[in-house]
């Protein structure tokens, strides 16, 4: 056991000391801090930008343009009524000809008085004239949507008023209708939407966390083993410490590294979130960590650990087959694809957690850490199914550890000349792990 901890300590210490590791960790921490504070930073910049966008139109006494002027006026009134309205209509006097009007409005854009202007045409059955919004920018969809929304409201209000409805009736028509979605279970009570939200968040977090941990540490474990092989330290190591201890010392060392790195990131995020200016944003999200189901948390930890160690073991095996670092990327590709597949099945099934694909893959060991936790969090899974999935995982881990340790031990043989399968089998039989 002693030498196991020696390997763990050595692996972790060298990683922590490595400049590359420290620098990437710091860079990611900085990016995270910026990310968390981004809404606040943007809002700081936006203070001046809260000013409404000015839109011009022609206010004319001409009969032909009456409908257009009326529409413009009603929009102007509508936005003036609103607090913090995003748009503001500005009326310009009629200069007589459309050319002169256009010239006037274009000059206003040039002078930065308005961003664009509305032009009115012939009357349409909608009750409004034909309209076009002209500005120097392309694709002003959000602005035109805002305008149509406003016009719809104005029209609705006018019609309702004409119909002679009371204010109460109008309010009733406008009141929103809500349906609360409560997930129920045949066994116990149910989960309220808030609890579901927290569960969803936890699952999201666990799946991403697991995926990140697997990808980063798996690659590191494999490359460290390959580096040991190519620098031939492996020959000394393997004659110093039993392969199982050597391999698991490495995996466990890397596990502590990844865990402390991720913990550091979480602390950075939490520290940033708890800064005074971010308080409001957090409150708005309605996250109540006490609503996390403790059983789900326990499952999450189990699936995280089993998933991590299964993948880590397999990465270690891949690392010991390859003898040069250049070949490593290619060799770890299948593992990366498998973890990606598990990750995507889980992420894309967040909205359909009871599909057949999810049900089947939640029992397949390499996918189940991602997928089963999704099912457990979002649907009602019988206990035996969860137990079976964990059981299958554990059996697979046992086999993977056994085979990987053998490969790790035998991998030393595989320099240059390719050993035959028969030879590998014989060697694997011969060495104790």
């Amino acid at each position, binding site marked *: 056991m002693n030498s196991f901890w020696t390997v763990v300590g050595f692996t972790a210490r060298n990683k922590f000391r490595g400049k590359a590791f420290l620098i990437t960790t710091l860079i990611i921490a900085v990016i995270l801090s910026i990310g968390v504070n981004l809404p606040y930073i943007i809002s700081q910049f936006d203070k001046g930008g809260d000013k409404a966008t000015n839109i011009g139109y022609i206010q004319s006494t001409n009969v032909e343009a009456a409908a257009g002027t009326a529409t413009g006026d009603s929009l102007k009134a509508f936005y003036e009524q609103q607090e913090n309205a995003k748009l503001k209509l500005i009326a310009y006097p009629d200069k007589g000809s459309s050319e002169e009007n256009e010239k006037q409005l274009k000059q206003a854009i040039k002078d930065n008085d308005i961003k664009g202007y509305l032009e009115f045409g012939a009357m349409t059955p909608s009750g409004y004239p034909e309209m076009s919004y002209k500005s120097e920018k392309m694709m002003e969809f959000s602005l035109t949507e805002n305008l149509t929304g406003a016009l719809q409201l104005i029209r609705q209000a006018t019609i309702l008023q004409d119909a002679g409805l009371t204010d109460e009736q109008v309010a009733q028509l406008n009141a929103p209708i809500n349906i609360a979605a409560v997930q129920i279970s045949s066994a116990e009570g149910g989960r309220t939407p808030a609890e579901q939200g927290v569960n969803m968040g936890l699952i999201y977090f666990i799946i991403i966390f697991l995926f990140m941990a697997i990808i980063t540490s798996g690659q590191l474990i494999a490359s460290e083993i390959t580096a040991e092989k190519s620098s031939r330290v492996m*020959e000394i190591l393997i004659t110093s410490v039993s392969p199982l201890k050597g391999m698991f010392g490495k995996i466990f060392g890397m596990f502590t590294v990844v865990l402390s790195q991720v913990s550091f990131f979480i602390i950075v995020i939490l520290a940033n979130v708890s800064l005074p200016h971010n308080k409001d944003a957090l409150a708005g999200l309605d996250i109540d960590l006490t609503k996390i189901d403790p059983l789900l948390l326990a499952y999450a930890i189990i699936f995280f650990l089993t998933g991590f160690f299964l993948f880590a073991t397999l990465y270690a095996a891949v690392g010991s087959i390859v003898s040069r670092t250049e070949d490593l990327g290619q060799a770890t590709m299948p593992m990366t694809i498998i973890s990606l597949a598990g990750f995507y099945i889980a992420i894309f099934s967040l909205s359909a957690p009871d599909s057949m694909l999810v049900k089947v893959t939640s029992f397949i060991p390499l996918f189940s850490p991602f997928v089963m936790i999704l099912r457990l969090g979002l649907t009602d899974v019988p206990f035996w199914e969860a137990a079976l999935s964990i059981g299958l995982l554990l059996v697979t881990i046992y086999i993977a550890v056994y085979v990987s340790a053998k490969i790790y031990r035998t991998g030393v043989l595989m320099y240059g000349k390719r050993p035959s399968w028969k*030879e590998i089998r014989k060697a694997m039989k011969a060495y104790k792990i």
Partner: protein
Amino acid sequence: MKPLVVEQVMKQYGEKTAVNNISFEVSEGEIYGLLGANGAGKTTTMRMVLGLIYPDGGSIKYNGKPYSNEQLSRLGYLPEERGLYPKIRVSDQIIYLSQLRGMSRKDADTNLKYWLERFEVPEYYNKRVEELSKGNQQKIQFIAAVNHRPSIIIMDEAFSGLDPVNVELLKSTVKELRDSGTSILFSTHRMEHVEELCRNITILHRSNTVVKGSIKEIKKQYPRERVILTTENDVTGLESISGVTGVKLQEYGYEIGIQNEAVGGEILRHAMAQSTVTRFEIKEPTLNEIFIKTVGDRHE
């Protein structure tokens, strides 16, 4: 009980036999030479002794016991190629490797400092291996093999890449280890080192043992076929003596090939008749000659 006994050990790679029934014993305080041309099976044999690869036949016993994890801490290994972490500091990795072989951190550190001092490079303690020259890396590699005080050390090409001064330094260290009772299995291509260090040797050729025994015994088996003769004046007619196979003129005088030792007397008498003889020696064959003879003869 001998510390290391190798008996009828065989190793096959596919169809090819890498080592064929090799047997030898290494006593306490002995340096055993394992010689052979490139690809003769030396490294394979050493790897089997280390437990790095598994023999297909025969047995290897360490103090009478078969290979097991308990034996690991008694073994030291100096690989032919560099086997160190390039980017890790000397102190970190030597202490780590010693700890893996069951030594305490403190003892490992004390030993490392002793060895660095011994090799006159104490400033390497905090250096990374990749910063050192090849020869100095070899010193560190040597320390890695001996730092945990193993009772059996396997040295594959221990002195490669070293300058003559450092070769002497390491050679005297190896002798010290031998005198303190360590058993050393030693391979090299430098025959003069073998003659200086080893009591017994095995010469491998194409996976087979071709010569085996103590250097003295081996030399006795090979006829003395060379006479060194130095005289004050020139001597003529040496070629015509019956039994002389050839005469070479060297800086120091004549090097004469003979069929058997008896011819030596004839040469001496012949030379003394013509001049004053300052040096006369019937040379025993060098290991180099024996090696070339045994390995070279079978090359065809």
